[in-house]
């Protein structure tokens, strides 16, 4: 394959050309309730070419028939010439690399019969269903893939990788009369079959929580000190801050650039944030990004001050900074764009544990897990999976419908205490941007305290009851 790709490269008349080819084997098994909804195996293959002529824009071609490789290389070159760009696109310098990077498959999923995958998922699904007859519905999904990946560019980089990914998710729906609650379990790793064994306890726990939430009151809306558990803190830093640190948002937008000026204070000195595409064994981890740039640990906020951002080769050159290995594409169907990898809030050495964060909280909310979140730049809204009230420095009753909404800048600045209990949340799902979803990423954080945040499920008190 490499010979075929370098031969095609040599025929390109563009000043810069890169080719990616991927072949992906995947299986997916889905249970809904006791019913197996589907068990499928798929094979997806295709290529991607990107070309740049001096003074031209990006010419891009993607295709599923590899017989079309030479034609597509030529077409990408023509498209680049057809879109004059001034000032020209430049690419940040990256030394060329030749690597055969076969990640540890940890039990190659391609060698496991699909019937065995069904049995595994059936057991986890059964763990949820077995909790109580209040569990009226479940959705359990197993998905794995192994992607063989080739990348070459006209600057001499030649890469061959084998990239595994395996995810499990479970939703347990509990119902009593008109009240419906759910619990969500999600596991994801850039590994293989061995890494998803013995996970029943997590599925059982979310089903138990869904049942418990049936009796939990809705949290009373208002402003509280809020402690985020590591999962929600990770989702928060990814969604609310991470996307703003992607340089394609700022590099050609002077106003955005001003908002994200390096050196600006974003938080108290306790706040340290980064993105690490080289952290071992995580879903956002790869040796190289999809432009052949080695991944690395990039500090974004150091002691409360903005010190870095995430780059592709193009955004780095435009801003006079270094490429950070964050140009990623979800598949051969897409061009690489600036994305996060494994994004984290660093644990504070000496920051203590969860108990140290709540000790002086008279009335607060402990917000745990995430059902979802959306940001519109400086505004965000996150739905926690569940919450617990904190009363007089202790964890008290379970509450539901915990929605956190606010302004990013205010909220980051109100983070006043960060524990030392950091961990990575190895979840499935993924990140979406510009039509590219789901991109495997990981988030990590310790427990984080926001001194004051708006919490509300029901903002006005009207319209909660009722139905058709």
């Amino acid at each position: 394959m490499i010979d075929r790709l370098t031969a095609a490269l040599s025929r390109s008349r563009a000043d810069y050309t890169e080719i990616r080819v991927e072949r992906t084997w995947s299986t997916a098994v889905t249970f809904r309730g006791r019913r197996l909804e589907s068990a499928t195996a798929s094979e997806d293959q295709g290529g991607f070419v990107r070309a740049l002529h001096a003074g031209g824009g990006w010419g891009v071609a993607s295709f599923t028939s590899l017989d079309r490789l030479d034609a597509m290389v030529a077409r990408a070159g023509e498209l680049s010439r057809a879109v004059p760009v001034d000032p020209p696109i430049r690419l940040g310098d990256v030394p060329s690399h030749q690597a055969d990077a076969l990640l540890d498959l940890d039990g190659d999923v391609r060698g496991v019969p699909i019937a065995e995958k069904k049995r595994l998922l059936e057991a986890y699904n059964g763990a949820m269903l077995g909790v109580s007859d209040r569990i009226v519905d479940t959705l359990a999904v197993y998905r794995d893939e192994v992607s063989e990946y080739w990348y070459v560019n006209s600057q001499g980089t030649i890469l061959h990788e084998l990239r595994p990914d395996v995810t499990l998710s479970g939703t347990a729906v509990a119902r009593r009369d008109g009240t419906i609650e759910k619990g969500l379990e999600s596991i994801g790793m850039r590994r293989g079959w061995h890494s998803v064994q013995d996970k029943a306890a997590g599925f059982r726990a979310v089903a138990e929580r869904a049942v418990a939430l049936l009796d939990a009151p809705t949290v009373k809306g208002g402003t509280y000190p809020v402690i985020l558990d590591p999962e929600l803190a990770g989702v928060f830093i990814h969604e609310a801050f991470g996307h703003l640190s992607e340089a394609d948002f700022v590099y050609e937008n002077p106003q955005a650039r001003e908002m994200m000026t390096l050196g600006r204070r974003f938080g108290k000195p306790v706040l340290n944030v980064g993105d690490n595409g080289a952290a071992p064994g995580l879903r956002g981890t790869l040796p190289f990004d999809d432009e052949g740039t080695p991944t690395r640990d990039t500090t974004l906020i150091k002691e409360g001050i903005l010190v870095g951002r995430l780059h592709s080769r193009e955004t780095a050159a435009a801003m006079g900074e270094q490429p950070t290995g964050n140009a990623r594409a979800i598949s051969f169907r897409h061009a690489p764009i600036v994305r996060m990898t494994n994004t984290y809030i660093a644990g504070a050495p000496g920051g203590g544990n969860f108990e140290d964060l709540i000790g002086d909280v008279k009335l607060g909310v402990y917000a745990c897990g995430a059902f979802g979140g959306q940001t519109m730049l400086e505004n965000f809204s996150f739905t926690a999976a569940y919450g617990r009230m904190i009363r007089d420095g202790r964890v008290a009753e379970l509450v539901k419908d915990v929605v956190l909404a606010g302004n990013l800048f205010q909220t980051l600045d109100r983070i006043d205490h960060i524990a030392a209990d950091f961990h990575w949340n190895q979840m499935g799902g993924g990140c979406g941007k510009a039509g590219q979803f789901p991109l495997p990423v990981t988030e990590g954080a310790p427990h984080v305290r926001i001194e004051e945040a708006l919490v509300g499920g029901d903002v006005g008190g009207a319209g909660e009851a009722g139905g058709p």
Partner: protein
Amino acid sequence: MIAQLVELARRRADGGADALWRRFERTTVAFEWGRLKSAGITEEAGANLRVRHRGRVGVAGTTATDAAPDELVGRALASAELGEELDLAFPAHAPLPSLTTFFDRAANASLDEVIAIGRSLLARLEREGCRVNVAIERETTATRVANTAGAGGEYRGTGFGVSADVWRIAGDDVLVVSDAFEGADLPSDAALAALVASINARLDHALRVVAPPEGALPVVFTPAGLSALLLPVTQALSGKAVLQGISPLGAKVGEQVFDLRVSLSDDPLRVGRTASRPLDDECVPSRTTCLVKRGVVQRFIYDLETAARAKTESTGHGTRGIFGKPVPAYTNIVLNDAGAQHAAPPQLGGGLLGDIRDGLLVDDLIGVGQGNVTGGAFSHPVALAYRIERGEIAGRVKDAAVAGNAYELWKRVGGFGNDARWTGSRCAPSVLFEGVSVARR
């Protein structure tokens, strides 16, 4: 390839098979932050096969269409071995409605013509202190579906999409106003002018920031802002949700649960829409489905599988990609069919603002689709909304949130606007609801 695939499957699967083959070519042009940045082409082809063998159903998909079809049949049969028993009947041959889905002007537009559309939009949207992104996409597709019962069909389609967003960042205030055209044919000059006028009107009104109102207030949702109120209803009208027992409308067929002036239909035969098609992805001929008529629930949408489980007929809503199995999905959703007009750009608010002393006009919300959507309760911070005072737009509000229960609100609608338009694959006017909870943050 598809005839060969279905024939091979017939020989090896005792309960029949159906298949979809689709090929598309897409041309894209992107202007980023005010300048032309890239042009691209995508060529993709793939096949999806479903078999029924020994009473069990299995599916398999591939983009390796040059591979031997035997291999795909083998994978589908392996999937069926694990599959659940299902009494799935593949439909017999039936006449198809005639429908134009392919437009030469869209298919033949040159790259230069596409770029020219983008440049003309940029020129009309540029303004001091703002940055503009424009993306244009043109697609041509060829689809073939067939089954072992003799049904099938093929059609070609075109699609054209133009989207623009204008960004204004002042200090820490980020304002984004966007709009898009989506259709099967090239956009007319009037459609592009309407897109520009829609963005400019909303941007002009947004420059002034005012304090949000508070309380149970009249709120007008624009055609785009209406998602939070329509999503629970469309989810509840899916036969899949009804089968799962999670649809609040599951037992309400024949009952009036909405305002008498509410009608909702799904129309795959609308000429000029990209979701329109003569038959669905399971060989069922397309027809218009009336979901709600004068406030009364009429029926739910089904594909072959959900119809088999519900012991009813498919409504022609089977939708499948290259990978995975078919699912029931809407085509073109139409609220109160009044016909969308693009000729004269309508007033923001669709003429519903005049009688409002103090209220809100909602164009975009944050977090729509999160949480327990089907139940109808919603609570969202606003992304783009305006305060209405004495019948006029006073300015943009930030840090406000709206909440309510969609089913309660649809029972008594304050009024429908005269501004029905397509947003994506949904056609709706602005709608006024009374007593929506509005809170400040």
